[in-house]
C-alpha cells in the first residue's frame, strides 16, 4: 500500500513540474533556513561544552551599589582570595585567581609573536581539564614557567618540542615552557587564550599588584572557582555573599555582594540590570528561534495552499479510491505519505543548500559551525524535523482532500465550496503579515545602528591610530617617540593614554570637591593622558584648555567631560580642585583646567559616562595615540611611523589599531543581528512570493475560460490584469493592517533596551508597506498578464 502511495506521489510530482518545483524549492529554502538557525542555536546552547566540569565552574562576581544604582561585574579585590581560602575552603575544589586577558609579546630566537593570555593560579589546568600534550599538567608551579597552546608552540618552535625552551615575554621576562596544551576549541570561553603564566610571577612583577594584597577597594582582578560536588552555586553564594562587606567597613557603604556566576550562564545570560540578571545572548537565541519557526511555517503554508488550491484535480482520485473501498483514514494516511515524501525530498535539497551556504552563514554570524555529519543526535533531530514539517504541511490538505464526497466527485458535479478558499486567504495573510513584520523589524534594526553611528562622538576618529605599548621597554620614552613620529612626517601629533580610546579601563571613586552633596557616592571613568590630548584626538573644548608644556603645574591638572561637570554638580569648574577623600594619605589636589565635549568611549547606545582625564605621571601608558598626517596617504604615514618604531624597538612587532575600526566593533553585535535578520527577511519574502506565484498561476489557470469570455466581450489587458491582481492585493493590504501595529509594538519594545535610540517612524512602516505591495504586484502580474494576453479562442475551444 505505502509503495502505491509513494508511486502516486512521485508521479504527481513529475506531472505538475511547476507546482512541484515551487513546493519543493519553497520547502527546501525554508527548511535550510530553519536548519541553519537550528545549527546556530545548537552551537549557542553548547557553548563551553568543552569543559567537563562546566556545571560546577563559576566566576566570582560582585554587585556594588552607588547612589542606589547597582553595578555588577567580575572585577574583585585580591584579599577576597585569602578570605575564601581561610573561611570557606570546604565549599570549593578550586579557587583560581587570574589577571585580565592581555596581549603579550612572546619571543623565541628571531620569532616574536603577539598572543592573548592570562596570569593564573596553578589549579586552572585541572579545573579547565586542559589537554596537556607535552610537558607536565602542573606546569604553573614554578614562578618562571609558562604553558602555551599547541598552535602557539607551532608558531614559535615549529615541529620541535617546546618543553624546556625559553620564551622572552614582552622583551622582559625569560620563562621556561613547562607544558603545551591542545588549543581550546572555538565556541568556548578561553578559546583565544594562547598562554598561561604563573600567578606567582604576575604578582611579583609589579609593585601595585603586590600592594593590592590587602586592598579591598582595588577591584583589579578576577577569580574563577569550582565548587564541590555535594553543594550548589546558590548554597555557596549564600555563604560568601557578605565576605567583603564584613571584612571592610570602608567598602561596606557600597554594599558589596559576592556571588558565583555559573559557567552555564557566561555566554547566554551575562547581562545584569541594576543587580538583577536580565538575559543576554539568550534573547537572540529566542529571536532567531522564532524567526526559524516562522520561516518554516511560511514554507509549509505554500504547501498547504497549493495542495488545497489544486484539490479539484485530486478529487476524482479521492472519489475513485473511496468507491473501491478506501476509507477516510487510509486517504489521510496516503496524503500524509505524499507530504512526507515531498518533505523528504526538500530536506535532501535543504542539506545541499546548508552545505553550500554554511561558510557564508558562518561569516555572517561570526561562527565556526561545522556540518554535524557524524552526530547521531543531529540525524535524530532531523527525522523529527521532517516528521513535524510533514504533519504541519500535510495534515490540513490530507483532512481536506479526504473529506470529499465521492458521489458528487464521480458525478462530475464537484465544485469546491464558496468558502473553500477562505483558509487559503487566511494563510496568505499570515505569510505576508510575518514577512511585512520582518521587513519593518529589519529596517528598525538598521535604522537604530545608523542612528547610533551618526551620533556625534565628540572626537575625530578618522586618521587616528593607537599603538599598544604596555610592556616596560616603552616606559619613559614617549616624549622621544612623539618628537620622532612628528619629525618623520607620518603624524602631526601624539599623546598617550592609559586605556584605548574606545574603552574605559579604570573607574575611580574616593574624591571630594567643593559642593559635593553629602553621601554622594561618585563613580568616574579615569584615564591618564598626556600633552596634546585635545589636539591629537580632535576633542572639542567647552571651556578652559588642554594640558600644556607651558604650565608645569599641569602634572596635577585634570580635564573633565561635560557629563562629569553636571554629574558632580560643579559650577564654574575651571580653576576648582578635586581632592582625595582619604585624609590620612591624600594625593596632591587636581586642578580642573578644561572641560571637553562628551567623547563616546563606551557603548554608542548608552549615555556617556562621567569621565576625568588626568595628566599621566606614573608611567601609566597603555597606548600611543597618533594623529596621522592628512597631507599624506595612510600607507605612507604608516610606513614612516613603522620605521621610527622599528628604529627604537627593533625586537618588537609594530602593532597598531585604527580607532575608527575599533569604534566600529561596538556595532558588531547589532550589525550581526541586522545582517542575519536581512537574510532571513529576504528568505521569508521569497518563500511568500513563491507561494503567491503558485496561487496566482493556479487562479489564472482556473479562470482561463472566464478570461477568454471577458476578452471576447471587449475587456482590455489592463482590466484583466486588475481583475486577477486585485484579490491578492486585498490580502496583502489586510496583512499590512495586521503587521504594522504588531511590528510597531514589538520593535518599540526592542528599542527600549537602548538609552540612545531611534523610534519606529511612519516612514519605516510606509517603506515596508509600499515594498510589500510592489513585490506582490510584480509576483502576481507575471501570471495575470500571461493569462490576459493569451488567445481567447484557444481557451474557449478547450472547453
Amino acid at each position, binding site marked *: *500500500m505505502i509503495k*502505491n502511495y509513494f*508511486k*502516486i506521489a512521485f*508521479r*504527481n510530482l513529475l*506531472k505538475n513540474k511547476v507546482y512541484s518545483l515551487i513546493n519543493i524549492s519553497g520547502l527546501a529554502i525554508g527548511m535550510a533556513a530553519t536548519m541553519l538557525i537550528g545549527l546556530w542555536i545548537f552551537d549557542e546552547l553548547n557553548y563551553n561544552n568543552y569543559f567537563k566540569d562546566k556545571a560546577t565552574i563559576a566566576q566570582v562576581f560582585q554587585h556594588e551599589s552607588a547612589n542606589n544604582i547597582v553595578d555588577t561585574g567580575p572585577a574583585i579585590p585580591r584579599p577576597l582570595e585569602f578570605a575564601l581560602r581561610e573561611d570557606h575552603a570546604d565549599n570549593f575544589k578550586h579557587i583560581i585567581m587570574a589577571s585580565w586577558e592581555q596581549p603579550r609579546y612572546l619571543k623565541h630566537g628571531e620569532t616574536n609573536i603577539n598572543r592573548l593570555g592570562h596570569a593564573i593560579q596553578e589549579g586552572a589546568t585541572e579545573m579547565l581539564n586542559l589537554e596537556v600534550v607535552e610537558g607536565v599538567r602542573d606546569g604553573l608551579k614554578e614562578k618562571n614557567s609558562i604553558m602555551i597552546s599547541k598552535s602557539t608552540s607551532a608558531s614559535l618552535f615549529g615541529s620541535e618540542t617546546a618543553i624546556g625552551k625559553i620564551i622572552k615575554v614582552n622583551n622582559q621576562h625569560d620563562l621556561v615552557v613547562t607544558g603545551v596544551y591542545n588549543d581550546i576549541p572555538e565556541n568556548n570561553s578561553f578559546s583565544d587564550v594562547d598562554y598561561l603564566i604563573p600567578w606567582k610571577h604576575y604578582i611579583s612583577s609589579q609593585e601595585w599588584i603586590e600592594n593590592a594584597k590587602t586592598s579591598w577597594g582595588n577591584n583589579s582582578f578576577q577569580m574563577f572557582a569550582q565548587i564541590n560536588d555535594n553543594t550548589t552555586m546558590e548554597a555557596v553564594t549564600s555563604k560568601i555573599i557578605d565576605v567583603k562587606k564584613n571584612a571592610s567597613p570602608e567598602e561596606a557603604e557600597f554594599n558589596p555582594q559576592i556571588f558565583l556566576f555559573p559557567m552555564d550562564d557566561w555566554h547566554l545570560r551575562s547581562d545584569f540590570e541594576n543587580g538583577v540578571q536580565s538575559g543576554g545572548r539568550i534573547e537572540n537565541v529566542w529571536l532567531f528561534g522564532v524567526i526559524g519557526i516562522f520561516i518554516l511555517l511560511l514554507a509549509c503554508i505554500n504547501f498547504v495552499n497549493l495542495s488545497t488550491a489544486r484539490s479539484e484535480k485530486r478529487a*476524482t*482520485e479521492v*472519489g*475513485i*479510491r*473511496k*468507491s*473501491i*473501498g*478506501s*476509507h*477516510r*483514514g*487510509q486517504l489521510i494516511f496516503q496524503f500524509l505519505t505524499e507530504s512526507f515524501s515531498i518533505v523528504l525530498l526538500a530536506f535532501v535539497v535543504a542539506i545541499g543548500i546548508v552545505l553550500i551556504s554554511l561558510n557564508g552563514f558562518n561569516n555572517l554570524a561570526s561562527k565556526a559551525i561545522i556540518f554535524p555529519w557524524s552526530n547521531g543526535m543531529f540525524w535524530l533531530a532531523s527525522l523529527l524535523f521532517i516528521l513535524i514539517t510533514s504533519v504541519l504541511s500535510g495534515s490540513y490538505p490530507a483532512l481536506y482532500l479526504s473529506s470529499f464526497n*465521492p*458521489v458528487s466527485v*464521480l*458525478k*462530475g458535479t464537484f465544485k469546491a465550496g464558496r468558502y473553500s478558499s477562505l483558509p487559503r486567504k487566511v494563510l496568505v495573510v499570515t505569510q505576508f503579515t510575518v514577512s511585512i513584520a520582518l521587513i519593518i523589524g529589519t529596517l528598525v534594526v538598521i535604522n537604530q545602528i545608523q542612528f547610533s553611528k551618526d551620533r556625534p562622538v565628540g572626537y575625530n576618529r578618522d586618521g587616528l591610530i593607537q599603538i599598544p605599548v604596555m610592556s616596560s621597554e616603552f616606559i619613559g620614552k614617549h616624549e622621544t617617540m612623539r618628537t620622532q613620529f612628528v619629525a618623520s612626517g607620518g603624524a602631526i601629533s601624539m599623546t598617550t593614554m592609559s586605556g584605548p580610546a574606545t574603552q574605559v579601563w579604570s573607574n575611580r571613586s574616593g574624591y571630594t570637591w567643593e559642593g559635593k552633596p553629602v553621601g554622594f557616592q561618585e563613580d568616574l571613568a579615569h584615564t591618564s593622558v598626556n600633552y596634546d590630548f585635545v589636539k591629537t584626538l580632535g576633542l572639542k573644548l567647552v571651556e578652559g584648555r588642554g594640558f600644556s608644556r607651558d604650565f608645569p603645574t599641569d602634572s596635577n591638572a585634570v580635564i573633565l567631560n561635560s557629563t562629569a561637570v553636571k554629574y558632580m554638580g560643579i559650577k564654574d569648574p575651571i580653576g576648582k580642585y578635586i581632592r582625595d577623600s582619604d585624609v590620612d594619605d591624600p594625593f596632591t589636589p587636581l586642578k580642573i583646567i578644561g572641560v571637553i565635549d562628551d567623547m563616546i568611549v563606551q557603548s554608542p547606545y548608552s549615555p556617556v559616562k562621567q569621565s576625568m582625564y588626568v595628566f599621566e605621571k606614573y608611567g601609566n601608558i597603555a597606548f600611543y595615540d597618533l594623529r596621522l598626517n592628512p597631507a599624506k596617504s595612510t600607507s605612507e604615514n604608516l610606513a614612516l611611523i613603522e620605521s621610527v618604531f622599528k628604529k627604537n624597538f627593533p625586537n618588537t612587532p609594530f602593532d597598531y589599531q585604527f580607532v575608527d575600526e575599533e569604534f566600529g566593533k561596538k556595532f558588531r553585535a547589532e550589525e550581526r543581528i541586522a545582517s542575519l535578520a536581512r537574510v532571513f527577511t529576504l528568505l521569508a519574502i521569497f518563500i511568500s512570493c513563491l507561494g503567491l506565484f503558485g496561487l496566482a498561476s493556479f487562479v489564472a489557470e482556473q479562470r482561463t475560460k472566464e478570461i477568454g469570455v471577458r476578452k471576447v466581450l471587449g475587456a482590455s489587458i489592463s482590466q484583466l490584469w486588475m481583475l486577477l491582481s486585485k484579490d491578492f492585493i486585498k490580502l496583502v493590504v489586510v496583512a499590512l493592517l495586521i503587521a504594522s501595529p504588531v511590528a510597531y509594538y514589538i520593535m518599540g519594545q526592542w528599542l527600549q533596551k537602548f538609552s540612545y535610540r531611534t523610534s519606529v517612524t511612519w516612514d519605516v512602516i510606509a517603506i515596508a508597506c509600499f515594498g510589500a505591495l510592489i513585490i506582490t504586484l510584480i509576483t502576481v502580474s507575471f501570471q495575470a498578464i500571461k493569462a490576459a494576453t493569451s488567445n481567447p479562442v484557444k481557451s474557449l475551444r478547450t472547453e
Partner: protein
Amino acid sequence: MIQITDLEKFYKTEEVQTIALNKLSFEVKNGEFVAIMGPSGCGKSTLLNIIGLLDDPDGGSFQFNGEEVSNYNERKRSELRKHNVGFVFQSFNLIDELTVFENVELPLIYTGVKPAERKKRVEEVLEKMQIMHRRNHFPQQLSGGQQQRVAVARAVVNNPKLILADEPTGNLDSTNGNEVMDLLIDLNEAGTTIIMVTHSEHDAKYSHRIIRMLDGQKVTENILV
C-alpha cells in the same frame, strides 16, 4: 440480495427541497441482471449510489444480504463495499497517475491481498478483458473502449457479488459499447449480480429485468427473461 423498502432521499438547497427518491421499494435477487431506466433527474444514479454504499438514504430500509445497512458508519460501509461491490462508471474514472495494472490492482491492495496473489489475479483479469498487452500503459494512452475494459477489470478483480454500472457505455461508440455489454453478460453468467443504470434501450435488453423510474418512484417493471 438487495431488499429496498420505502427508500427516500432528499436534496436540500437554501430554499428548495428536491425529492430524489420517493418511497421506492424493490428487490434484487442473487445472480440477477437488472437495468434501471428513466429520464435524467429521476433518481437512478442516486439509487445506485445508495446501493453502492456511497450515499446515505434519508428514510426507508436498505438490506444487503439480509442485513440492514442504511445506518452503517463510513468505515463499516467501506468494508462492506470493498468486499462485495464493484463499480463501473460512464466516465471510467481511472486514476491517471496509475498504469492499467496498478489501477486494477488497487481494490486488492485495499482488501489486503498479498503482492504475489495480487499479481496473479490482476493478470488473470487483464487476460480475460483482453487488455493484458496494455498493462503498463497509463489511462490517457488508451481508447475509450479500452479504458472501460480496464474499469470493468478493476470492478471485478475482487470477485464482488454485485456490480453497479452507471451508464457503462455512455461514452463509447456502439462497437466498444457492445464489447463492454458482452463482458457484463459474461460476468453475470458467471454468477455476479449486476445493477445497471442506462438510458439505452439497446443495453437494457441485455438485462433480465428493467425497472423504469420517474420522479424518484418506480413506475413499471418489465421482466425480459
